[in-house]
C-alpha cells in the first residue's frame, strides 16, 4: 500500500493519494498534500474543505456537486455559489482535489 509521509508519521493512501481512513486526517496533512501539488491553501480553500468534512461526518460520502455549490453559496454569498468559483479554487475539480485534501474517499459507481 502507498503511504504519505508527513511530520514523522506515515499515512496509508490509495493509488491516487486519497487517504485510506478519513479519520486519520488533520489540517496539517491537507496543507501538506496541497503543497505537494504546488498550491497554498487560502481561507477560501479551507471553507470548502471544512464543509466537505462536516458533510462527510453526517452522510459518509462526499456531497454531490449540486449540494456543495448551493451550500457554499449560502454561507459565503451567491457570487461563490457556482462551479466556476470552485474550479478556480480547485482546478483538478472540487470533487476530486478538494475531497483528497479533506481526506475523503473518492465516490465510485455510475459516476
Amino acid at each position, binding site marked *: 500500500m502507498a503511504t504519505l509521509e508527513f511530520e514523522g508519521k506515515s499515512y496509508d493512501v490509495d493509488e491516487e493519494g486519497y487517504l485510506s481512513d478519513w479519520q486519520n486526517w488533520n489540517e496539517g496533512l491537507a496543507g501538506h498534500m496541497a503543497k505537494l501539488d504546488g498550491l497554498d491553501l487560502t481561507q477560501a480553500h479551507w471553507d470548502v474543505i471544512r464543509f466537505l468534512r462536516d458533510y462527510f461526518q453526517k*452522510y459518509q460520502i462526499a456531497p454531490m456537486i449540486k449540494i456543495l455549490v448551493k451550500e457554499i453559496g449560502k454561507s459565503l454569498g451567491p457570487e461563490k455559489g457556482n462551479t466556476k468559483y470552485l474550479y478556480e479554487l480547485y482546478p483538478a475539480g472540487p470533487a476530486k482535489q478538494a475531497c483528497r485534501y479533506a481526506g475523503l474517499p473518492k465516490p*465510485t*459507481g*455510475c459516476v
Partner: protein
Amino acid sequence: MSKTPKPDELSKVDYTPPKTGWMDTPAEFKQGMWCYGSKPKNLETLEFPNPRQWSPADEDWKLPENWQEILLNGLKERLDKYRSFKVFMDICVRCGACADKCHFFIGSGDPKNMPVLRAELLRSVYRGNFTTAGKILGKLAGARKLTYSVLKEWWYYFFQCTECRRCSVFCPYGIDTAEITMMARELLNLLGLNTDWISGPAANCYMKGNHLGLEPHTIVGNLEYMLDDIETITGIKIKPSFNRKGAEILFVTPSGDLFADPGTYTAMGYLMLFHELGLDYTWSTYASEGGNFGFFTSNELAKRLNSKIYAEAKRLGVKWILGGECGHMWRVLNQYMDMWNGPADFLLVPKSPVTGTVFENAKSTKMVHIAEFTADLIKHGKLKLDPKRNDHLKVTFHDSCNTARGMGIFEEPRYIIKNVCNHFYEMDEHTIREKTFCCGSGSGLNAGENMELRMRGGLPRANAVKDVVEKYGVNMLANICAIDRAALPAILDYWVPGTGCTGVHELVANALVMKGEKERTTNLRGEPLNGMEGQE
C-alpha cells in the same frame, strides 16, 4: 497514472499485429489501459476469496499456491453448470465475422481485442485441459497450459471487454462473448482478482443497498436538493414518499442518478413526471440501486445484490415495479431476475394506472422500463408537452447496449424524444439499435485510471456522433443508461467537444407542461430558455 495521449495521437490506431504469434506474445500492461486491483476490505465485505493488498502492476499477485487447481476446478464446474458456456467453448469456427466489430479492437488495434481472440484466450486453456485433441496435440489443436502469464493475459483482456454483445450480433453461431467474459471474470474472482472500481461499488451495494454507499438520509437529502431546484424552476413543490407501505408502484433506479450530473437531471425528470401524473409510487432507501456491479463479478453476487428488489416490493406490498433509465440493470432484470429471485407471484402484471395499458411483456418479472411507461403515456395523449422548450437542442440517441441488445428497446425512447424535441437526428444505421456501439466504459470499466482504454473504446461511438454533429449540427446525445451518463461526457469532451449528454427523462421534464407551474425561464440545468417558450 500516465497522462492520456491527445486525440490526434490516439486516433492513429495501428492495426499491425505483433510479429510473434498470439500465444507467444504475453500481455504488456500498459498504463491507462487497466484499473486498480480490488481492495481487501471490499473483498472481505463480499466474503470473496483472497482479500489482500495487491496491484496488477506487481509481478507477484499474491495468489494461493494451488491457484491453477482452483481455476481449473472452477472452469470445470462452469462447463458442467452452463450449457451455453460449454457450447461457446466448442463451436467457434474462427470465421472472423466478429473481429472488427468490437469498439476496443477498432480503437486499439490490439488483436486480442478481437472478440474471437479474446474468447480464444480462455478456449485455449479449455482445450488444453478438457478436450482429448487439445491434451494430445497441444498447440497444434489450439491448446495451451494455464500459466501465470496466461492468467495475467486473462485479467488484462477480460477487463477490456464491456460485455456489450455487439460482436454476438454478427456471429453466425450467436456466440455470446459477454458470457465468456462473465465466466472468465467469475474465475478470476476465485483468486481475488477483481478491479476495485467493481468490487468497491459491489461491496457498497451489499452493505448499504447502492453502489455509491448512499445512506437512507443521504438519498432523501440529495432528492430534497433536487426538489428545491424543481420548485425554483417550476414553482411546484413536490413531496415524494420513501419506503411507503401500500404504494401501488415501487420505483427503482441506478444510484448514480441520485448523485452525479447529468444523471441528477434525469432523476429530477422522474420526480416531475410522477408528480404530474399523481402516481401512487414510492422510492426505497433499501432497494436503492437498479444497477448491479455484481453482474461484472459473478452470477452468484449479481443474484445476491438483485434479491433486494423483490424483497422490498414484497415488504412494501406494492403491485408492481417501475425501473429507471439504466443499461446493465435491465439485462439483469429482463434476463436473470425472475430465474434467480422469482417468481414474484406476490406482484400483479404491471398495468399503467394512467392509461390502463397492461404490460404483458413484463408479466413474469413484474418490472417495467420507464421508457415503455412514458412512451405509452404519450401515445395516449396523457402528457401536455411543449417541445419548443428543447428547441436549442439538436438531439441524437445512443442506444445503450443492454437495453438495445438485451431487451430490444429501440422505438420507445425514440418515440419519446420525437415528442419532446423538435430536432432529432439518427446516427449512422450501423452504429445504432442492435448494432449500437458501446460507450466504451460499461461493465464497470468507467474508472478514472483507465482513461486511455475508455477513450479508445469510445472512439467508434464518438465517430458516429461526430458525423451527425458535422451533418446536422447535433449538440446533445440522449441515452437511457446511467453508465452512459457518467462515461459519455468525458468521451464527448475528448473526441467531440461541445456535445452534451442527457437522459431521456430530462428532455421529457423540460418539455412537460405541469399543472400550476409558473412560466419557466430556465431548463433543469438552470440554463436560460432564451425566450424559446411560446414562440412559433
